[in-house]
């Protein structure tokens, strides 16, 4: 018996709205269809009528988990456009926060993977220890989620000796715990039974479907912008690109944990050789006409921003490509021939950040606070109009 089950737009396995239509034959998936567009905020259009400073915070809000990655990607592009050279200390702090963010994102992901597999104890423990890095980030930047530490030309907050000591101390704890979770994740039989061999993505497919980040690296494609295109501090620190050859969810767990350990290494190196000096230079309000492509290795994969300036204090065009969007074609491939029970795990294994991937359509061009209000009234108006124009069809087919 073949029938369709909807995973999303609202589903307990999804933390954000996306629609996956699964055609299943018993427990086996035979067809997958992805539908986006439930979480669009029109950021690219909105960015065109915000000035360079405001856009830092706008890009930061593309994502809640890798907020720093988008802001950094944007800021380093704008710095190139404005021909600014941020001070070394500022850069070190910026990429220190970036690596701390990678740590928090990967720990979060470990917990989510545990939760999707029904391994709630693992979830609770990883998230408990993630609090350590969240507290560090809060101490450095003043906020747990949207750090807002970037500014054009450097960073906004300096580190003092006490903070550096606290960070180093936190990293020691975290490293011990991460190694322990690696041991658990690779040895707990019921967990391994769920993730080994699940969501297979061959190396050829990973290349052809342009997969990025840990998904590509778990398939043996050593694609990491920090190594391929080293910028700022990444050619001064010593780290390795974590890869795995198992091409399954287990491989993605392994890659992420290895990356955690590499990140601890990078953080320690950055802190040890933290140069003295200023943390920021003053930025002009306007940028000369020009274009720049800015790349950044976010926790989920490569982030790419294309920024074009036209000489005013606002960008002509800001194109954002978040890593999750690049991984969708690969996800469809991975889900095929899997079990229903594997859907949440495979989907979670790309570490989906749906609000990252969907940012383009403009329904509302308003400040963040107004959006919900406008959207509510707008939706209500449209719902009424739609109801009047078209009577609701019973058993209507999904309109695609």
């Amino acid at each position: 018996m073949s029938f369709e089950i909807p995973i999303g737009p609202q589903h307990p396995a999804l933390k954000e709205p996306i629609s996956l239509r699964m055609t299943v034959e018993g427990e086996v998936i035979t067809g997958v269809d992805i539908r986006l567009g439930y979480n669009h905020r029109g950021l690219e259009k909105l960015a065109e009528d915000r000035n360079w400073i405001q856009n830092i915070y706008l890009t930061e809000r593309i994502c809640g988990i890798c907020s720093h990655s988008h802001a950094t990607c944007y800021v380093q592009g704008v710095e190139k456009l404005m021909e600014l050279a941020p001070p070394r200390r500022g850069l070190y702090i910026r990429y220190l926060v970036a690596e701390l963010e990678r740590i928090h994102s990967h720990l979060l992901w470990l917990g989510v993977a545990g939760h999707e597999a029904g391994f709630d104890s693992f979830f609770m423990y990883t998230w408990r220890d993630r609090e350590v890095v969240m507290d560090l980030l809060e101490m450095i930047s003043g906020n747990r989620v949207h750090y807002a530490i970037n500014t054009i030309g450097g960073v906004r907050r300096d580190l003092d000796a006490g903070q550096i000591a606290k960070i180093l101390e936190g990293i020691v704890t975290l490293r011990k715990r991460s190694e322990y979770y690696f041991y658990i994740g690779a040895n707990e039989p019921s967990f391994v039974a769920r993730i080994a061999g699940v969501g297979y993505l061959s190396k050829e497919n990973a290349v052809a479907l342009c997969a990025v980040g840990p998904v590509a690296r778990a398939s043996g494609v050593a694609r990491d912008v920090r190594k391929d295109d080293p910028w700022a501090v990444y050619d001064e620190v010593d780290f390795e690109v974590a890869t795995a050859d198992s091409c399954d969810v287990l491989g993605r767990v392994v890659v992420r944990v290895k990356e955690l350990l590499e990140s601890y290494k990078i953080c320690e190196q950055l802190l040890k050789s933290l140069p003295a000096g200023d943390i920021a230079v003053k930025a002009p309000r306007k940028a000369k006409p020009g274009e720049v492509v800015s790349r950044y290795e976010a926790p989920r994969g490569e982030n790419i921003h294309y920024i074009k300036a036209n000489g005013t204090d606002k960008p002509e065009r800001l194109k954002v490509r978040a890593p999750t969007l690049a991984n969708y074609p690969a996800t469809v491939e991975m889900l095929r021939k899997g079990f229903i029970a594997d859907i949440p795990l495979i989907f979670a294994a790309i570490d989906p950040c749906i609000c990252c991937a969907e940012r383009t359509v403009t329904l509302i061009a308003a400040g963040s606070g107004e959006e919900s209000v406008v959207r509510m009234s707008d939706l209500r108006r449209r719902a009424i109009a739609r109801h009047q124009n078209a009577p609701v069809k019973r058993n209507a087919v999904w309109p695609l």
Partner: protein
Amino acid sequence: MKIAVFLPELLRHLFKKPATVDYPFKKLEVPKDFRGTPYLNPEMCIVCKACERDCPAEAIEITSVNEAEKRFKMIIHNDRCIHCAQCVDSCPTTPKAMLMDSLFEIADDDRHKMKKDWVYVRAVLKPKAAAPAAAPQAAEPKA
């Protein structure tokens, strides 16, 4: 393959104190430079409107109440504020006219109650050296 690898860790925690905090009955301290809610120190504001221009959420609104008296009104829409503290960074005076406190429990069931406004006379700052003691007579704060 081992069996029950998580067991020692779980049993170890059975009689330990929980890691979670009994919020809202007990509260954690926020760090020193926590970005809470913005507020205005009207004695220092020179109405340059840098904060209004740079606010990403358009949460700051400065209007003129009385042109002749140089009386202005600032409204901070806390319902829109995204707590980025860019207004503090943009503020050109020393000490800053825009500041952040450490309040984080500012939720309300009415958006109107989340607005804060100040009516004040524009501060006239002396040259930079004397800035800290600037123009106390000009201020007339009103919450």
